[in-house]
């Protein structure tokens, strides 16, 4: 028996297994934010990463520009057609906005779930082991970013912030396979809005899965899906995508919609972190 304990390698192995399990347990806890030493490491590594990724993105951008030039002609044609519609739409929007503001003034209700201010950020790295789809951006707590905030590209919602350090934050993309990654969403209908949850991503179809949709409401393909602004710190009507397919869930009680995301989950460099103007319930409570 004493010989057993004298075996140095075995003891090292046992001790490291204990450390491994406790470290994993520690980091898997449902915690508010990562610890100070972790934040420090992230800041230091993130600084180096941003130094390296800037020229790399520059070079990649140059080649992307050349590629863009090839498509300019066909793109221009399409855009001209859209432009005429746009002018009409713009007048309508301006009119509606003014109308909305006036009515709000009459009501005396200035808080709005829809209003937000964006924080511009640059993607500095992407998780190389693709178990989860995560990106790291170059803005953090110092710029006012908090956990659970929505992250968008110019095309639409891409994910939400899962942890922050002083200078960087980690964003989990909607395409990530993580059951905790949920977004409260709604389908814009002509008559009523249909609420549901974006919960999961179908990797083969490349579509988002929207669950918990009531059975009795008719949903059409091509309807717009946006954030609902309920729960958490997401503002309302951030673009998510369009309904592409419809099925029922395994029990036949609710409908499941497959949503084609508006945003690309790859090949973007600039993102906006969305700070809702209206405080969420939690922050309000802290303030009291």
């Amino acid at each position, binding site marked *: 028996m004493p010989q057993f304990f004298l075996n140095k390698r075995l003891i090292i192995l046992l001790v490291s297994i204990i450390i*491994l399990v406790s470290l994993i347990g520690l980091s898997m806890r449902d915690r508010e934010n990562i610890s100070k030493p972790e934040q420090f490491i992230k800041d230091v590594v993130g600084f180096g990463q941003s130094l390296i990724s800037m020229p790399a993105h520059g070079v990649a951008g140059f080649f992307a520009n050349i590629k863009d030039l090839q498509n300019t002609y066909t793109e221009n044609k399409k855009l001209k057609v859209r432009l005429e519609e746009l002018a009409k739409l713009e007048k309508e929007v301006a009119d509606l906005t003014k109308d909305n503001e006036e009515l709000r003034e009459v009501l005396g209700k200035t808080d709005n779930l829809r209003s937000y201010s964006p924080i511009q950020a640059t993607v500095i*790295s992407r998780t190389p082991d693709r178990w989860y789809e995560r990106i790291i951006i170059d803005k953090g707590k110092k710029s006012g970013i908090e956990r659970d905030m929505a992250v968008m590209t110019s095309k639409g919602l891409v994910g939400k912030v899962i942890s922050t350090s002083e200078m960087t934050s980690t964003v989990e993309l909607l395409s990530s396979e993580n059951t905790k990654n949920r977004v409260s969403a709604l389908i814009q209908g002509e008559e009523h809005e249909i609420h549901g949850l974006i919960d999961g991503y179908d990797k083969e179809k490349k579509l988002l899965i929207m669950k918990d949709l009531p059975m009795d409401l008719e949903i059409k393909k091509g309807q717009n899906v946006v954030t609902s602004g309920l729960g958490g710190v997401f503002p309302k009507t951030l673009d998510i995508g369009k309904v592409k397919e419809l099925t029922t869930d395994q029990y036949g009680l609710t409908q499941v919609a497959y949503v084609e995301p508006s945003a690309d989950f790859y090949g973007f460099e600039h993102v906006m972190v969305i700070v809702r103007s209206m405080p969420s319930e939690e922050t309000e409570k802290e303030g009291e």
Partner: protein
Amino acid sequence: MRRIILPLVLALAFYSESLFAAFFPPEAFGAERLFIPHFVASLLIFMGIYHFGHRALVYAAIFGLIYDVYYTGIIGVYLFMFPIAVYFAMKLMKVWHTNLLTSGLAAILSLALMESLVYGFQLLVMHVSVTPADFATDRLLPTLILNLAFIILVSFPFSRFLMRRKKEEAES
């Protein structure tokens, strides 16, 4: 001055992994194949093989820790997997005669072991829904191919560099 070259090379490899992930989306290779870069691990394994044993293990733990904190957020996985891969390769090379071919093979085997262990962890703890067959064809095989290409590219200059460093250290 010369002392920092090795950590610098490793740091560059570390950053290049995420650049690779950003610029080569899975769509670039068609289908659902996931090419996971393990450049740092490959270099560390080479350090282990070319008689930097003890230091290679320490570096492996440090880079594993940084990898965990910076990318995955679950501390402990790569912190242990990197040293395990290096240790495994070192043990293999005790049996085999060291040359570029066998060290490349040892590196690939260690990477396969590491990737499988991480998959086992993800399956047990994080409950990912990837079947072993899918893992083998969609993740393990492409990953090994990518890293084999990387190893073929860098093994010759890097092993030369390691041997020169070793000689310099022995002299001074």
